[in-house]
């Protein structure tokens, strides 16, 4: 090919690319300013009707009406948490949604609400619990180290000024753009403060290697800063029965158990409770004084920290071994007990196996598996 022909080819490519770019930009502008979908009605669960301006995503349209569907990726179609059932008016499933939907979900009309555009009247089904979820603006009141890799973060609510939640539930904290992180992301953290305290919440956050949100909390977040979160979410909360309560946690899994204990002291006094907390060594333990004081005030409660690998030079007179080994030693049987577990999926699986082997049915085992 001659130099002239090459130059001609290059110029043609540049011109065509430029035209394609201009056309794409025009389409975006047309979508934003010219396409008018008018008012659309979102019918929820066959009962509630929202009148919204058409054109935005279903996720955003719901959020604008204070219905917050869980989402961790900020509407980019990568977390797949924002699934809702679209009964009609949602249009065809987009290729970006396909990988995140099972065959059954596709059949039932489940969609990623961040990918569904509201362009006509639309009918959806969502869990009733979502109506209680709000977005909160809060100020960081305090951050303190609990261990070398775990921090306690206290958030004072600004707007709304109060929150109602069940002890054991979690919120989704918004991480704003920082460093290489260009768009906001959301991550789930259990509330560790008692449910009676309605004007502030506390979180227990462990540093995750290469984690977007925990890096922000550990390296960027400071007292006085404003943050956003939504919630409360989750079905991990105390059931109202007479059975003895057995709590098991590892690491930051302490958070919802602490919230439950501080929220329901009368249940502990009435039903009795034991809390097995697994850690590797003394430096991984925290809230020891709080638990000692709690046990002093509630004679039917016992706190059992268990170290799997105590350092030889650390003074330790408590239980040693994996938390499951200590449970096996200390629990004679599983009868007339309820089990509340929070920790890594590995810990949850090991506990569930043990409890089943002790005769516990799945109906009395509740867990928040960090999943």
């Amino acid at each position, binding site marked *: 090919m001659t130099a002239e022909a090459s130059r001609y080819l290059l110029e043609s490519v540049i011109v065509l690319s430029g035209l394609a770019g201009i056309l794409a930009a025009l389409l975006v502008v047309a979508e934003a300013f010219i396409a008018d979908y008018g008012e659309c009605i979102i019918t929820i669960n066959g009962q509630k009707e929202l009148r919204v301006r058409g054109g935005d995503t279903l996720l955003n349209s719901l959020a604008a009406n204070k219905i917050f569907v869980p989402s961790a990726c900020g509407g980019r179609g990568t977390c797949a948490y924002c699934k809702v059932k679209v009964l009609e008016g949602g249009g065809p499933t987009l290729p*970006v949604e396909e990988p995140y939907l099972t065959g059954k979900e596709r059949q039932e009309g489940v969609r990623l609400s961040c990918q569904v555009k509201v362009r006509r009247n639309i009918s959806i089904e969502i869990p009733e619990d979502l109506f209680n979820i709000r977005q909160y603006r809060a100020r960081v009141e305090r951050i303190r180290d609990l261990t070398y890799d775990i921090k306690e973060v206290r958030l004072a609510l600004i707007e709304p000024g109060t929150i109602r939640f069940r002890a054991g539930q979690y919120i989704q904290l918004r991480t704003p753009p920082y460093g290489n992180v*260009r768009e906001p992301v959301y991550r789930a953290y259990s509330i560790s403060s008692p449910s009676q305290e309605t004007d502030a919440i506390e979180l227990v956050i462990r540093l995750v290697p290469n984690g977007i949100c925990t890096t922000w909390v550990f390296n960027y977040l400071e007292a006085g800063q404003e943050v956003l979160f939504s919630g409360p979410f989750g079905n991990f909360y105390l059931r109202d029965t007479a059975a003895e309560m057995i709590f098991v946690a590892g690491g930051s899994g302490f958070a919802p158990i602490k919230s439950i204990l501080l929220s329901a002291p009368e249940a502990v006094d009435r039903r009795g409770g034991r809390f097995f907390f697994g850690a590797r060594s003394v430096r991984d333990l925290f809230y020891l004084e709080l638990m000692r004081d709690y046990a002093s005030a509630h004679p039917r409660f016992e706190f059992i920290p268990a170290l799997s690998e105590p350092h030889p030079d650390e003074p330790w007179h408590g239980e040693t071994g994996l938390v499951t080994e200590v449970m096996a030693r200390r629990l004679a049987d599983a009868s007339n007990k309820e089990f509340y577990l929070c920790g*890594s999926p590995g810990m949850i699986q090991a506990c569930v196996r043990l409890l089943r082997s002790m005769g516990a049915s799945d109906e009395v085992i509740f867990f928040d598996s960090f*999943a």
Partner: protein
Amino acid sequence: MKRVPKWRDIEEMMKPGRLTRDGMLGSDPRPLEEIIESDGATVARLGLTHGDIARRLEELTAASMERLGDPVIVEETYEVRVEEARGSLPCPFKHPGRWRKAVTYCRHLPTGESIAWTALGVHMIEAHGFYEGRGSPFRLDPERIARLLAPRASSEKADPAEHNGIPRPSARRQGAGLEPDDRNATG
């Protein structure tokens, strides 16, 4: 050569701050297809498949899972521990499913060298032949894995140009018309 837009989308997902803080491409200037192709050639030269390597990583992870995050000595050669965090991650190749936020830390006792991998990383090796870009925190160099972890070759050798019946990117570029999602559908 013009790239299939979906490869650019996948690279976008692998950038820092999208799925993970530091991303998956590191400082590697090569296009994603080239990274995959180069590592695929190395794996084939070692007489292994991506499945062999993924299986070995999973073996070591499984051996330490019972210890709930505590280190365990495996085969008298490796000290292995698994750290799990709340949540899960999607595959940047848009493969169906989600992967636990679990990191396996492995120390090769004879040399003292350490190597770490994620649950998502093992999946990306097995299903997509992707070992992450150079300079990425969880880059797994196939030669280093072979030297430290001694994965065993499966008895049935795969065509080095294929993995799980999926042609490598070179085959795609030769005109097979394969796009990333096609790989995902069978990977």
